[in-house]
Protein backbone atom coordinates (compact mmCIF):
# COMPACT_ATOMS: atom_id res chain seq x y z
CA UNK A 1 0.00 0.00 0.00
CA UNK A 2 1.32 3.41 -0.95
CA UNK A 3 2.28 5.99 1.64
CA UNK A 4 1.57 9.66 2.14
CA UNK A 5 4.47 12.07 2.79
CA UNK A 6 3.97 12.00 6.56
CA UNK A 7 3.81 8.18 6.60
CA UNK A 8 7.14 8.02 4.78
CA UNK A 9 8.70 10.46 7.23
CA UNK A 10 7.29 8.63 10.25
CA UNK A 11 8.52 5.26 9.00
CA UNK A 12 12.04 6.58 8.44
CA UNK A 13 12.14 8.15 11.93
CA UNK A 14 10.42 5.37 13.87
CA UNK A 15 11.74 4.53 17.33
CA UNK A 16 8.96 2.90 19.31
CA UNK A 17 5.29 1.99 19.29
CA UNK A 18 4.29 2.22 22.96
CA UNK A 19 0.60 1.45 22.33
CA UNK A 20 -2.11 1.39 19.68
CA UNK A 21 -1.17 3.74 16.82
CA UNK A 22 1.16 5.91 18.91
CA UNK A 23 4.64 6.30 17.40
CA UNK A 24 7.67 7.74 19.07
CA UNK A 25 9.79 9.33 16.35
CA UNK A 26 13.32 10.68 16.19
CA UNK A 27 13.57 14.46 15.73
CA UNK A 28 15.88 16.20 13.28
CA UNK A 29 15.40 19.57 14.93
CA UNK A 30 13.87 21.17 18.00
CA UNK A 31 13.14 24.89 17.72
CA UNK A 32 12.70 27.15 20.73
CA UNK A 33 11.43 30.64 21.56
CA UNK A 34 11.34 32.64 24.74
CA UNK A 35 7.66 32.22 25.62
CA UNK A 36 7.27 28.45 25.90
CA UNK A 37 10.88 27.29 26.38
CA UNK A 38 11.84 28.98 29.70
CA UNK A 39 9.22 26.95 31.58
CA UNK A 40 10.65 23.77 30.03
CA UNK A 41 14.20 24.84 30.93
CA UNK A 42 13.21 25.60 34.53
CA UNK A 43 11.50 22.25 34.83
CA UNK A 44 14.52 20.39 33.45
CA UNK A 45 16.74 22.22 35.95
CA UNK A 46 14.34 21.39 38.78
CA UNK A 47 14.43 17.71 37.82
CA UNK A 48 18.23 17.72 37.72
CA UNK A 49 18.13 17.02 33.96
CA UNK A 50 19.49 20.24 32.53
CA UNK A 51 20.85 18.62 29.37
CA UNK A 52 20.19 18.84 25.62
CA UNK A 53 20.13 15.86 23.24
CA UNK A 54 22.23 17.59 20.57
CA UNK A 55 23.11 21.31 20.66
CA UNK A 56 23.47 21.38 16.84
CA UNK A 57 19.90 20.24 16.36
CA UNK A 58 18.43 22.80 18.72
CA UNK A 59 17.79 26.30 17.35
CA UNK A 60 16.54 29.15 19.49
CA UNK A 61 15.31 32.69 19.04
CA UNK A 62 13.91 35.51 21.11
CA UNK A 63 11.05 36.74 18.94
CA UNK A 64 7.74 37.16 20.70
CA UNK A 65 8.57 40.22 22.78
CA UNK A 66 11.81 41.79 21.66
CA UNK A 67 13.36 44.06 22.83
CA UNK A 68 11.94 43.07 26.22
CA UNK A 69 9.05 45.33 27.26
CA UNK A 70 9.15 44.78 31.03
CA UNK A 71 10.91 42.82 33.77
CA UNK A 72 8.97 39.64 33.15
CA UNK A 73 9.74 39.45 29.44
CA UNK A 74 13.34 40.40 30.20
CA UNK A 75 13.53 37.45 32.60
CA UNK A 76 12.12 35.09 29.94
CA UNK A 77 14.74 36.25 27.44
CA UNK A 78 17.48 35.85 30.02
CA UNK A 79 16.52 32.25 30.83
CA UNK A 80 16.68 31.31 27.13
CA UNK A 81 19.91 33.27 26.53
CA UNK A 82 21.72 31.78 29.52
CA UNK A 83 20.57 28.28 28.57
CA UNK A 84 21.71 28.68 24.96
CA UNK A 85 25.16 29.77 26.22
CA UNK A 86 25.36 27.03 28.83
CA UNK A 87 24.68 24.32 26.25
CA UNK A 88 26.61 25.88 23.35
CA UNK A 89 23.55 26.21 21.16
CA UNK A 90 25.24 28.07 18.36
CA UNK A 91 22.15 28.86 16.35
CA UNK A 92 20.66 31.27 18.85
CA UNK A 93 19.28 34.56 17.56
CA UNK A 94 19.10 37.54 19.87
CA UNK A 95 18.52 41.30 19.48
CA UNK A 96 19.76 42.66 16.17
CA UNK A 97 19.79 39.21 14.57
CA UNK A 98 16.43 37.90 15.66
CA UNK A 99 13.21 37.53 13.73
CA UNK A 100 9.95 35.62 13.94
CA UNK A 101 10.75 31.93 14.45
CA UNK A 102 8.72 30.55 11.53
CA UNK A 103 10.30 33.06 9.16
CA UNK A 104 13.90 33.06 10.36
CA UNK A 105 14.47 29.30 10.78
CA UNK A 106 13.50 28.45 7.17
CA UNK A 107 15.48 31.46 5.94
CA UNK A 108 18.61 30.09 7.67
CA UNK A 109 18.18 26.73 5.91
CA UNK A 110 17.25 24.80 9.07
CA UNK A 111 14.19 23.20 7.49
CA UNK A 112 14.73 20.45 4.91
CA UNK A 113 12.50 18.03 3.04
CA UNK A 114 11.90 14.89 5.10
CA UNK A 115 12.80 16.51 8.43
CA UNK A 116 10.91 15.98 11.67
CA UNK A 117 10.64 19.17 13.74
CA UNK A 118 8.83 20.20 16.89
CA UNK A 119 8.52 23.54 18.61
CA UNK A 120 6.46 24.87 21.49
CA UNK A 121 4.37 26.90 19.10
CA UNK A 122 1.24 25.93 17.22
CA UNK A 123 2.33 27.52 13.92
CA UNK A 124 5.28 25.14 13.65
CA UNK A 125 3.13 23.55 10.92
CA UNK A 126 4.56 26.29 8.64
CA UNK A 127 7.67 24.19 7.91
CA UNK A 128 5.62 21.56 6.12
CA UNK A 129 5.97 23.90 3.13
CA UNK A 130 9.37 22.21 2.58
CA UNK A 131 8.00 18.65 2.61
CA UNK A 132 8.85 18.22 6.29
CA UNK A 133 6.75 16.94 9.18
CA UNK A 134 6.64 19.78 11.69
CA UNK A 135 4.24 20.07 14.59
CA UNK A 136 3.50 22.46 17.39
CA UNK A 137 3.68 20.90 20.84
CA UNK A 138 3.24 21.94 24.45
CA UNK A 139 5.96 22.58 26.98
CA UNK A 140 6.23 18.97 28.20
CA UNK A 141 6.70 17.57 24.68
CA UNK A 142 9.23 20.32 24.06
CA UNK A 143 11.04 19.40 27.26
CA UNK A 144 11.32 15.75 26.23
CA UNK A 145 12.37 16.87 22.72
CA UNK A 146 15.18 18.95 24.18
CA UNK A 147 16.29 16.17 26.51
CA UNK A 148 15.86 13.10 24.32
CA UNK A 149 15.32 14.21 20.71
CA UNK A 150 12.06 12.27 20.45
CA UNK A 151 8.34 12.98 20.37
CA UNK A 152 5.19 10.84 20.38
CA UNK A 153 2.42 11.25 17.79
CA UNK A 154 -0.46 9.19 16.52
CA UNK A 155 0.44 7.55 13.21
CA UNK A 156 -0.54 10.14 10.61
CA UNK A 157 -3.82 10.29 8.76
CA UNK A 158 -3.76 12.63 5.80
CA UNK A 159 -6.26 14.73 3.90
CA UNK A 160 -5.15 15.78 0.44
CA UNK A 161 -6.38 19.08 -0.94
CA UNK A 162 -5.94 19.62 -4.67
CA UNK A 163 -5.91 23.34 -5.24
CA UNK A 164 -7.10 23.81 -8.80
CA UNK A 165 -7.46 26.73 -11.16
CA UNK A 166 -5.42 29.91 -11.48
CA UNK A 167 -5.42 32.61 -8.83
CA UNK A 168 -7.15 35.78 -10.04
CA UNK A 169 -5.21 39.07 -9.72
CA UNK A 170 -5.37 40.43 -6.17
CA UNK A 171 -5.99 36.98 -4.67
CA UNK A 172 -3.13 35.46 -2.71
CA UNK A 173 -2.08 32.40 -0.67
CA UNK A 174 -3.73 34.01 2.37
CA UNK A 175 -7.09 34.10 0.61
CA UNK A 176 -6.62 30.49 -0.49
CA UNK A 177 -5.95 29.23 3.02
CA UNK A 178 -8.82 31.29 4.47
CA UNK A 179 -11.14 29.69 1.91
CA UNK A 180 -9.87 26.22 2.87
CA UNK A 181 -10.32 26.87 6.60
CA UNK A 182 -13.83 28.18 5.92
CA UNK A 183 -14.56 24.98 4.01
CA UNK A 184 -13.07 22.54 6.56
CA UNK A 185 -14.03 24.45 9.73
CA UNK A 186 -11.75 25.07 12.73
CA UNK A 187 -12.09 21.41 13.65
CA UNK A 188 -12.11 19.92 10.15
CA UNK A 189 -8.56 18.55 10.13
CA UNK A 190 -7.98 17.88 13.83
CA UNK A 191 -5.42 15.09 14.36
CA UNK A 192 -4.81 15.03 10.62
CA UNK A 193 -2.17 16.20 8.21
CA UNK A 194 -3.08 18.20 5.14
CA UNK A 195 -1.15 17.67 1.91
CA UNK A 196 -1.53 20.65 -0.40
CA UNK A 197 -1.25 19.61 -4.02
CA UNK A 198 -2.29 20.92 -7.43
CA UNK A 199 -1.20 23.52 -9.98
CA UNK A 200 -1.83 26.48 -7.68
CA UNK A 201 0.62 25.14 -5.09
CA UNK A 202 3.17 24.22 -7.78
CA UNK A 203 3.06 27.82 -9.01
CA UNK A 204 3.57 29.23 -5.52
CA UNK A 205 6.86 30.56 -4.14
CA UNK A 206 8.21 29.13 -0.88
CA UNK A 207 6.92 32.25 0.88
CA UNK A 208 3.38 31.63 -0.36
CA UNK A 209 3.60 27.93 0.53
CA UNK A 210 4.64 28.92 4.04
CA UNK A 211 1.57 31.20 4.29
CA UNK A 212 -0.57 28.24 3.22
CA UNK A 213 0.94 25.74 5.67
CA UNK A 214 1.14 28.31 8.49
CA UNK A 215 -2.63 28.35 8.89
CA UNK A 216 -3.18 24.56 8.62
CA UNK A 217 -3.45 24.57 12.43
CA UNK A 218 -6.43 26.94 12.16
CA UNK A 219 -8.34 23.99 10.69
CA UNK A 220 -6.98 21.85 13.52
CA UNK A 221 -4.33 20.09 11.40
CA UNK A 222 -1.13 18.78 12.92
CA UNK A 223 0.86 19.88 9.90
CA UNK A 224 0.34 21.18 6.35
CA UNK A 225 2.66 19.68 3.75
CA UNK A 226 3.69 20.77 0.24
CA UNK A 227 5.82 18.51 -1.95
CA UNK A 228 9.47 19.44 -2.49
CA UNK A 229 10.18 20.55 -6.07
CA UNK A 230 12.47 22.92 -8.02
CA UNK A 231 11.15 25.87 -6.05
CA UNK A 232 12.15 24.17 -2.80
CA UNK A 233 15.59 23.26 -4.14
CA UNK A 234 16.22 26.80 -5.41
CA UNK A 235 15.21 28.28 -2.05
CA UNK A 236 17.53 25.90 -0.17
CA UNK A 237 20.40 25.76 -2.67
CA UNK A 238 22.85 27.94 -0.70
CA UNK A 239 22.48 25.61 2.27
CA UNK A 240 22.52 22.24 0.49
CA UNK A 241 25.06 22.76 -2.29
CA UNK A 242 27.72 20.84 -0.38
CA UNK A 243 25.42 17.85 -0.03
CA UNK A 244 24.46 17.47 -3.70
CA UNK A 245 26.41 17.56 -6.95
CA UNK A 246 23.75 19.67 -8.68
CA UNK A 247 20.22 21.02 -8.32
CA UNK A 248 18.76 18.13 -10.33
CA UNK A 249 20.56 15.70 -8.01
CA UNK A 250 18.98 17.40 -4.99
CA UNK A 251 15.60 17.34 -6.67
CA UNK A 252 15.98 13.62 -7.44
CA UNK A 253 16.88 12.88 -3.81
CA UNK A 254 13.90 14.87 -2.52
CA UNK A 255 11.48 12.91 -4.70
CA UNK A 256 11.32 10.38 -1.89
CA UNK A 257 9.32 12.96 0.07
CA UNK A 258 6.49 12.96 -2.40
CA UNK A 259 3.54 10.63 -1.76
CA UNK A 260 3.29 7.27 -3.54
CA UNK A 261 0.78 7.34 -6.42
CA UNK A 262 -1.38 4.83 -4.54
CA UNK A 263 -1.13 6.57 -1.15
CA UNK A 264 -4.20 6.20 1.04
CA UNK A 265 -5.97 9.35 2.14
CA UNK A 266 -8.69 10.03 4.69
CA UNK A 267 -10.24 12.30 2.11
CA UNK A 268 -9.27 13.94 -1.15
CA UNK A 269 -10.76 17.39 -1.66
CA UNK A 270 -10.74 19.35 -4.91
CA UNK A 271 -10.63 23.02 -4.15
CA UNK A 272 -11.05 25.33 -7.12
CA UNK A 273 -9.79 28.87 -6.68
CA UNK A 274 -10.40 30.23 -10.19
CA UNK A 275 -13.33 32.32 -8.94
CA UNK A 276 -11.88 33.10 -5.52
CA UNK A 277 -12.21 36.67 -4.28
CA UNK A 278 -10.14 38.43 -1.60
CA UNK A 279 -11.41 37.22 1.78
CA UNK A 280 -11.59 38.54 5.32
CA UNK A 281 -12.65 37.02 8.63
CA UNK A 282 -15.40 38.32 10.86
CA UNK A 283 -16.08 37.23 14.45
CA UNK A 284 -13.72 35.33 16.67
CA UNK A 285 -12.93 32.21 14.64
CA UNK A 286 -10.69 31.88 11.57
CA UNK A 287 -13.34 29.84 9.71
CA UNK A 288 -15.79 32.75 9.82
CA UNK A 289 -14.87 34.15 6.43
CA UNK A 290 -16.57 36.46 3.96
CA UNK A 291 -15.59 38.14 0.70
CA UNK A 292 -14.00 41.52 1.37
CA UNK A 293 -16.77 43.21 -0.57
CA UNK A 294 -19.34 41.89 1.93
CA UNK A 295 -17.40 43.62 4.72
CA UNK A 296 -16.60 46.72 2.67
CA UNK A 297 -16.71 49.89 4.75
CA UNK A 298 -16.12 48.24 8.16
CA UNK A 299 -14.33 50.92 10.19
CA UNK A 300 -10.85 50.10 11.47
CA UNK A 301 -8.50 51.70 13.99
CA UNK A 302 -5.30 49.90 13.12
CA UNK A 303 -3.67 48.02 10.27
CA UNK A 304 -1.02 45.44 11.09
CA UNK A 305 1.20 43.98 8.37
CA UNK A 306 3.55 41.31 9.66
CA UNK A 307 3.71 37.97 11.52
CA UNK A 308 4.82 34.47 10.55
CA UNK A 309 1.87 34.32 8.15
CA UNK A 310 2.51 37.45 6.09
CA UNK A 311 5.63 39.32 7.19
CA UNK A 312 7.97 38.05 4.47
CA UNK A 313 9.50 40.05 1.64
CA UNK A 314 6.83 39.09 -0.91
CA UNK A 315 4.11 40.24 1.47
CA UNK A 316 5.79 43.59 2.03
CA UNK A 317 6.29 44.00 -1.73
CA UNK A 318 2.61 43.46 -2.42
CA UNK A 319 1.54 45.83 0.36
CA UNK A 320 4.03 48.49 -0.72
CA UNK A 321 2.75 48.32 -4.29
CA UNK A 322 -0.75 49.10 -3.05
CA UNK A 323 0.44 51.86 -0.74
CA UNK A 324 2.97 53.57 -2.98
CA UNK A 325 2.27 57.28 -3.34
CA UNK A 326 -0.75 57.12 -1.02
CA UNK A 327 -1.30 58.01 2.61
CA UNK A 328 -2.53 56.00 5.57
CA UNK A 329 -6.02 57.29 6.46
CA UNK A 330 -5.96 59.91 9.22
CA UNK A 331 -8.08 57.76 11.54
CA UNK A 332 -5.88 54.67 11.17
CA UNK A 333 -2.61 53.63 12.78
CA UNK A 334 -0.51 51.68 10.28
CA UNK A 335 2.12 49.29 11.63
CA UNK A 336 4.43 47.09 9.60
CA UNK A 337 6.78 44.53 11.15
CA UNK A 338 9.23 42.86 8.71
CA UNK A 339 9.50 39.24 9.89
CA UNK A 340 13.29 38.96 9.95
CA UNK A 341 16.38 41.20 9.70
CA UNK A 342 16.99 39.81 6.20
CA UNK A 343 13.47 40.77 5.15
CA UNK A 344 14.02 44.21 6.69
CA UNK A 345 17.33 44.66 4.86
CA UNK A 346 15.87 43.57 1.56
CA UNK A 347 12.88 45.86 2.04
CA UNK A 348 15.26 48.75 2.72
CA UNK A 349 17.22 48.02 -0.45
CA UNK A 350 14.07 47.84 -2.56
CA UNK A 351 12.75 51.12 -1.19
CA UNK A 352 9.80 49.37 0.43
CA UNK A 353 10.52 50.72 3.89
CA UNK A 354 10.65 54.23 2.43
CA UNK A 355 7.27 53.68 0.76
CA UNK A 356 5.74 52.58 4.06
CA UNK A 357 7.26 55.49 5.98
CA UNK A 358 6.21 58.07 3.42
CA UNK A 359 2.68 56.71 3.64
CA UNK A 360 2.73 57.25 7.40
CA UNK A 361 3.32 53.67 8.56
CA UNK A 362 5.29 52.89 11.70
CA UNK A 363 7.96 50.30 10.87
CA UNK A 364 8.92 48.15 13.86
CA UNK A 365 11.80 45.76 14.34
CA UNK A 366 11.22 42.08 13.46
CA UNK A 367 9.03 40.62 16.24
CA UNK A 368 5.73 38.83 16.85
CA UNK A 369 4.72 41.97 18.72
CA UNK A 370 1.08 42.85 18.18
CA UNK A 371 0.14 39.48 16.62
CA UNK A 372 -0.46 38.04 20.06
CA UNK A 373 -1.25 41.31 21.79
CA UNK A 374 1.98 41.50 23.77
CA UNK A 375 3.70 44.62 22.40
CA UNK A 376 4.16 47.04 19.46
CA UNK A 377 0.50 47.61 18.66
CA UNK A 378 -1.81 46.20 21.35
CA UNK A 379 -5.46 47.17 20.77
CA UNK A 380 -7.60 49.06 23.26
CA UNK A 381 -11.05 47.81 24.30
CA UNK A 382 -13.48 48.13 21.39
CA UNK A 383 -10.81 48.76 18.74
CA UNK A 384 -10.69 47.02 15.38
CA UNK A 385 -7.57 45.84 13.54
CA UNK A 386 -7.19 44.83 9.91
CA UNK A 387 -4.39 42.31 10.19
CA UNK A 388 -2.28 39.97 8.09
CA UNK A 389 -1.81 37.62 11.07
CA UNK A 390 -3.43 34.21 11.57
CA UNK A 391 -5.70 34.41 14.62
CA UNK A 392 -8.78 36.46 15.34
CA UNK A 393 -9.63 34.94 18.72
CA UNK A 394 -11.35 37.24 21.19
CA UNK A 395 -8.72 39.43 22.84
CA UNK A 396 -5.89 38.06 20.66
CA UNK A 397 -4.38 41.48 19.89
CA UNK A 398 -5.52 43.08 23.14
CA UNK A 399 -8.38 42.71 25.60
CA UNK A 400 -11.68 43.67 24.02
CA UNK A 401 -10.18 44.17 20.55
CA UNK A 402 -11.51 42.76 17.26
CA UNK A 403 -9.20 41.34 14.58
CA UNK A 404 -10.07 40.85 10.92
CA UNK A 405 -7.64 38.56 9.11
CA UNK A 406 -6.79 39.32 5.48
CA UNK A 407 -4.01 39.37 2.89
CA UNK A 408 -1.31 42.07 2.84
CA UNK A 409 -2.90 43.58 -0.28
CA UNK A 410 -6.27 43.96 1.43
CA UNK A 411 -4.69 45.23 4.65
CA UNK A 412 -2.73 47.85 2.71
CA UNK A 413 -5.80 48.99 0.78
CA UNK A 414 -7.77 49.18 4.03
CA UNK A 415 -5.05 51.31 5.63
CA UNK A 416 -5.50 53.92 2.92
CA UNK A 417 -9.31 53.82 2.92
CA UNK A 418 -9.68 53.76 6.72
CA UNK A 419 -12.07 50.84 6.39
CA UNK A 420 -12.02 47.29 5.06
CA UNK A 421 -11.80 47.37 1.27
CA UNK A 422 -10.27 45.68 -1.74
CA UNK A 423 -7.27 47.18 -3.43
CA UNK A 424 -8.23 49.37 -6.38
CA UNK A 425 -5.10 48.41 -8.27
CA UNK A 426 -6.51 44.93 -8.86
CA UNK A 427 -9.85 46.16 -10.10
CA UNK A 428 -10.16 45.96 -13.82
Amino acid at each position, binding site marked *: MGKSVAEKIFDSHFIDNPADDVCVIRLDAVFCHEITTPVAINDLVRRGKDRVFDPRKIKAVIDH*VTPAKDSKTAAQGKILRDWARRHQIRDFFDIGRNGICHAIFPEKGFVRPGFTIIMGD*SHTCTYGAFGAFAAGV*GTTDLEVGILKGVCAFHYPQTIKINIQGTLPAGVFAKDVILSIIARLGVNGA*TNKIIEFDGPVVEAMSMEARMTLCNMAIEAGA*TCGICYPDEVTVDYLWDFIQDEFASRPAALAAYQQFKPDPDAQYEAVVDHDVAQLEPLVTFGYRPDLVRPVKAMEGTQIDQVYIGSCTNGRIEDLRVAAQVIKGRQVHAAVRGIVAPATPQVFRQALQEGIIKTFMEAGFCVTNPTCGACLGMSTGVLAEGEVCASTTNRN*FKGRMGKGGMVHLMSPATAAASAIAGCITNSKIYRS
Partner: protein
Amino acid sequence: MKNFNGTVLFLNRADINTDEIIPARYLTEISKEALKPYLFEEIHLDGFDPRRDLAGKKIIITRSNFGCGSSREHAPWALEVNGIKLVIAASFARIFRQNMFNCGMLAVELPPARIDHLFEEFASHKTTITTDLARNRFTVAGAGKQEEVPFSLPAFDRALIQVGGWVEYADARY
Protein backbone atom coordinates in the same frame (compact mmCIF):
# COMPACT_ATOMS: atom_id res chain seq x y z
CA MET B 1 -1.82 9.81 40.26
CA LYS B 2 -4.03 12.89 40.41
CA ASN B 3 -7.58 12.89 41.76
CA PHE B 4 -10.32 13.12 39.12
CA ASN B 5 -13.40 13.55 41.30
CA GLY B 6 -15.47 16.60 42.17
CA THR B 7 -17.99 19.21 41.14
CA VAL B 8 -18.69 19.86 37.46
CA LEU B 9 -18.56 23.11 35.51
CA PHE B 10 -20.61 22.96 32.30
CA LEU B 11 -19.31 25.14 29.43
CA ASN B 12 -21.94 25.11 26.73
CA ARG B 13 -20.03 26.06 23.60
CA ALA B 14 -17.86 24.38 20.96
CA ASP B 15 -14.38 25.57 19.91
CA ILE B 16 -13.33 27.18 23.20
CA ASN B 17 -9.77 28.17 22.32
CA THR B 18 -6.62 28.45 24.39
CA ASP B 19 -6.65 32.26 24.17
CA GLU B 20 -10.01 32.14 25.94
CA ILE B 21 -8.67 29.70 28.53
CA ILE B 22 -5.58 31.82 29.24
CA PRO B 23 -4.86 34.97 27.17
CA ALA B 24 -1.40 35.42 25.65
CA ARG B 25 -0.68 38.48 27.77
CA TYR B 26 -0.23 36.18 30.79
CA LEU B 27 2.31 33.94 29.07
CA THR B 28 5.07 36.06 30.55
CA GLU B 29 4.37 34.38 33.90
CA ILE B 30 6.98 31.78 34.73
CA SER B 31 5.13 30.11 37.62
CA LYS B 32 1.96 28.10 37.07
CA GLU B 33 0.37 29.47 40.27
CA ALA B 34 0.51 33.03 38.86
CA LEU B 35 -1.96 32.03 36.11
CA LYS B 36 -4.69 31.25 38.63
CA PRO B 37 -6.74 34.49 38.56
CA TYR B 38 -6.81 34.68 34.75
CA LEU B 39 -8.45 31.36 33.82
CA PHE B 40 -11.21 31.95 31.23
CA GLU B 41 -10.73 35.72 31.41
CA GLU B 42 -11.48 36.06 27.68
CA ILE B 43 -14.16 33.40 27.34
CA HIS B 44 -16.94 34.26 24.96
CA LEU B 45 -19.89 32.60 26.71
CA ASP B 46 -23.01 34.46 27.75
CA GLY B 47 -24.05 33.99 31.35
CA PHE B 48 -20.68 32.63 32.48
CA ASP B 49 -18.57 34.68 34.85
CA PRO B 50 -15.33 32.94 35.82
CA ARG B 51 -15.01 34.88 39.08
CA ARG B 52 -18.47 33.74 40.17
CA ASP B 53 -18.79 30.31 38.55
CA LEU B 54 -15.35 28.69 38.87
CA ALA B 55 -15.20 28.38 42.64
CA GLY B 56 -14.97 24.79 43.85
CA LYS B 57 -15.20 23.24 40.36
CA LYS B 58 -12.93 20.25 39.64
CA ILE B 59 -14.21 18.96 36.31
CA ILE B 60 -15.33 20.56 33.05
CA ILE B 61 -17.92 19.15 30.67
CA THR B 62 -17.98 20.89 27.31
CA ARG B 63 -18.71 20.52 23.60
CA SER B 64 -16.39 19.81 20.65
CA ASN B 65 -12.88 21.02 19.77
CA PHE B 66 -12.05 22.23 23.27
CA GLY B 67 -8.57 23.81 23.52
CA CYS B 68 -8.11 24.73 19.87
CA GLY B 69 -5.58 27.39 18.87
CA SER B 70 -2.25 27.97 20.51
CA SER B 71 0.04 25.19 21.76
CA ARG B 72 0.40 26.83 25.17
CA GLU B 73 0.57 24.30 27.98
CA HIS B 74 -0.39 27.26 30.15
CA ALA B 75 -3.98 26.22 29.34
CA PRO B 76 -3.89 22.91 31.25
CA TRP B 77 -1.74 24.58 33.92
CA ALA B 78 -4.29 27.35 34.43
CA LEU B 79 -6.96 24.66 34.82
CA GLU B 80 -4.84 22.65 37.23
CA VAL B 81 -3.95 25.53 39.56
CA ASN B 82 -7.68 26.21 39.76
CA GLY B 83 -8.25 22.61 40.83
CA ILE B 84 -9.54 21.29 37.47
CA LYS B 85 -7.77 18.09 36.40
CA LEU B 86 -10.40 16.43 34.24
CA VAL B 87 -12.06 17.77 31.09
CA ILE B 88 -14.82 15.78 29.37
CA ALA B 89 -15.67 16.94 25.85
CA ALA B 90 -17.15 15.79 22.57
CA SER B 91 -13.66 16.29 21.11
CA PHE B 92 -10.38 18.10 21.76
CA ALA B 93 -7.78 19.93 19.72
CA ARG B 94 -4.74 17.68 19.35
CA ILE B 95 -2.10 19.73 21.16
CA PHE B 96 -4.35 20.58 24.10
CA ARG B 97 -5.34 16.95 24.58
CA GLN B 98 -1.72 15.79 24.47
CA ASN B 99 -0.69 18.54 26.89
CA MET B 100 -3.30 17.34 29.41
CA PHE B 101 -1.93 13.77 29.43
CA ASN B 102 1.67 14.99 29.30
CA CYS B 103 0.94 16.76 32.61
CA GLY B 104 -0.70 13.65 34.05
CA MET B 105 -4.18 15.19 33.69
CA LEU B 106 -7.22 13.53 32.13
CA ALA B 107 -9.03 14.53 28.91
CA VAL B 108 -11.89 12.21 28.01
CA GLU B 109 -13.93 12.22 24.83
CA LEU B 110 -17.54 11.07 24.93
CA PRO B 111 -19.88 10.69 21.95
CA PRO B 112 -21.68 13.97 21.13
CA ALA B 113 -25.07 12.40 21.95
CA ARG B 114 -23.81 11.49 25.42
CA ILE B 115 -22.54 15.04 25.93
CA ASP B 116 -25.95 16.40 24.82
CA HIS B 117 -27.59 14.10 27.33
CA LEU B 118 -25.34 15.21 30.19
CA PHE B 119 -26.06 18.86 29.38
CA GLU B 120 -29.82 18.22 29.28
CA GLU B 121 -29.98 16.21 32.47
CA PHE B 122 -27.38 17.84 34.67
CA ALA B 123 -26.20 21.25 33.44
CA SER B 124 -28.72 23.27 35.41
CA HIS B 125 -28.04 21.43 38.70
CA LYS B 126 -25.11 21.01 41.04
CA THR B 127 -23.43 17.91 39.66
CA THR B 128 -20.52 15.79 40.84
CA ILE B 129 -18.46 13.13 39.09
CA THR B 130 -16.55 10.24 40.58
CA THR B 131 -14.00 8.65 38.26
CA ASP B 132 -13.27 4.94 38.36
CA LEU B 133 -10.21 4.52 36.16
CA ALA B 134 -9.98 0.77 36.79
CA ARG B 135 -13.50 0.21 35.43
CA ASN B 136 -13.46 3.08 32.88
CA ARG B 137 -16.58 4.61 34.38
CA PHE B 138 -17.76 7.98 35.62
CA THR B 139 -20.53 8.15 38.17
CA VAL B 140 -22.43 11.36 37.48
CA ALA B 141 -24.69 12.55 40.30
CA GLY B 142 -26.98 15.57 40.51
CA ALA B 143 -30.61 16.67 40.40
CA GLY B 144 -31.53 13.67 42.57
CA LYS B 145 -30.27 11.27 39.87
CA GLN B 146 -27.22 9.13 39.41
CA GLU B 147 -25.83 7.72 36.17
CA GLU B 148 -22.93 5.53 35.19
CA VAL B 149 -21.10 6.76 32.09
CA PRO B 150 -18.58 4.45 30.43
CA PHE B 151 -15.53 5.88 28.69
CA SER B 152 -12.50 4.55 26.92
CA LEU B 153 -8.94 5.54 27.62
CA PRO B 154 -6.16 4.59 25.17
CA ALA B 155 -3.36 2.55 26.72
CA PHE B 156 -0.66 5.15 26.09
CA ASP B 157 -2.68 7.95 27.71
CA ARG B 158 -3.40 5.73 30.70
CA ALA B 159 0.31 4.99 31.07
CA LEU B 160 1.08 8.73 31.06
CA ILE B 161 -1.42 9.40 33.85
CA GLN B 162 -0.08 6.51 35.88
CA VAL B 163 3.57 7.56 35.76
CA GLY B 164 2.73 11.26 36.21
CA GLY B 165 3.39 12.52 32.68
CA TRP B 166 5.52 12.27 29.54
CA VAL B 167 8.86 13.43 31.01
CA GLU B 168 8.90 10.54 33.47
CA TYR B 169 7.73 8.10 30.81
CA ALA B 170 10.22 9.16 28.12
CA ASP B 171 13.12 9.49 30.50
CA ALA B 172 12.69 5.93 31.67
CA ARG B 173 12.44 4.48 28.15
CA TYR B 174 14.41 6.50 25.59
